[in-house]
């Protein structure tokens, strides 16, 4: 399962990726260490729950190991991993939704901030809490668009909704955040 041939000008592959493809767990651990904070930040904000974000983060890296052969090397590994992570997290949240209460009936959202933002500026902490308290779909769209920089069309494709619905959810999320932060 060797990496496919690539244009040398676009080879952006971390050498650890090639070693991981050959089964080198130590190389993959290095990739994990470098990227886990970034991936967990996405999971934490999309999930709104620290424990579930941990579970999703672990699943992202397991999935990345199993899908590594599909990495084409024409984009940065971090970009590929980020996209894979978003898809994995959305899949995981869909699975959870099958057994969860309908939106709005799940009780108080978890408000415990992640440990490394506990002592940060109050405004930032309020924003983290307010994001976590958003309804699921609005939170997902807000995080993907305003925090992670995806376009509505990309979000629509990943979430299985229309771009118009994504725009509507974003508008709703921003309004709710303004109310929560005012």
């Amino acid at each position, binding site marked *: 399962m060797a990496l496919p041939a690539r244009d040398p000008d676009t080879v952006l592959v971390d050498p650890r990726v090639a070693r991981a493809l050959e089964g080198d767990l130590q190389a993959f651990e290095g990739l994990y260490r470098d990227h886990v904070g970034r991936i*967990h930040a996405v999971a934490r904000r999309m999930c709104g729950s620290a424990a579930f974000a941990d579970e999703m983060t672990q699943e992202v890296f397991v999935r990345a190991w199993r899908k590594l052969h599909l990495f084409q090397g024409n984009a940065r590994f971090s970009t590929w991993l980020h996209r894979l992570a978003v898809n994995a997290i959305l899949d995981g949240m869909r699975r959870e939704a099958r057994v969860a209460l309908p939106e709005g009936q799940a009780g108080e959202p978890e408000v415990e901030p992640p440990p490394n933002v506990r002592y940060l500026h109050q405004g930032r902490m309020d924003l*983290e809490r307010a994001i976590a308290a958003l309804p699921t779909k609005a939170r997902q769209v807000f995080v993907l668009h305003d925090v992670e920089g995806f376009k509505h069309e990309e979000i629509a494709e990943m979430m299985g909704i229309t771009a118009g619905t994504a725009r509507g959810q974003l508008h709703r999320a921003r309004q709710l955040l303004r109310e929560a932060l005012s």
Partner: protein
Amino acid sequence: MTTHDDDDAIPADLAGLLADLPREIEPSEDLWEGVRREIEPVPVSLGRAPNRVHPGAWLVAGLVAAAAVAMVTVAITGRPGDRPRIAEAAPAEAVEQWESDVRQTTDELLVMLDARRSELDPEAIRVIEAALADIDSAIADVRGALRDDPGNDVLEAALAGVYQRKVQLLRSVAALPNTTEPGVGG
């Protein structure tokens, strides 16, 4: 992922706060051990010292095959409550291309196994071949299920898992010591 269109620009009142959010948040605990447990190869150790064979060693290859078969069974029957660590659904062509690549790897390893047949313990060969037969049977089962339900991400993950076990088993065999050489293994 791309930059926003102008009409999707983040409102100024939120932009300042968002710009201040940390890009990285560490998990509540080190998750690497959990990841490693999920992905590390199943240890297969069929090498032995003459006259000091641990009976359990011969079962390892069989256990590898059994694990593969069990995983496929779960994937096909969808036992309630199980949440397999699945890969995201890929287009059928991508699955076929991937399977073709993996087959090339397993074919190369099988050629290596054949070349080493005379060097290896006959009992080890017998166990390995039985394990491979079980794995191939599992691959056929999940392949058949995928024909009925193309794009099923659980089945694709099962297929990937079974092939992974086949590659692991064959790589382990390739690394076995030559038991016909004097002094090998003790």
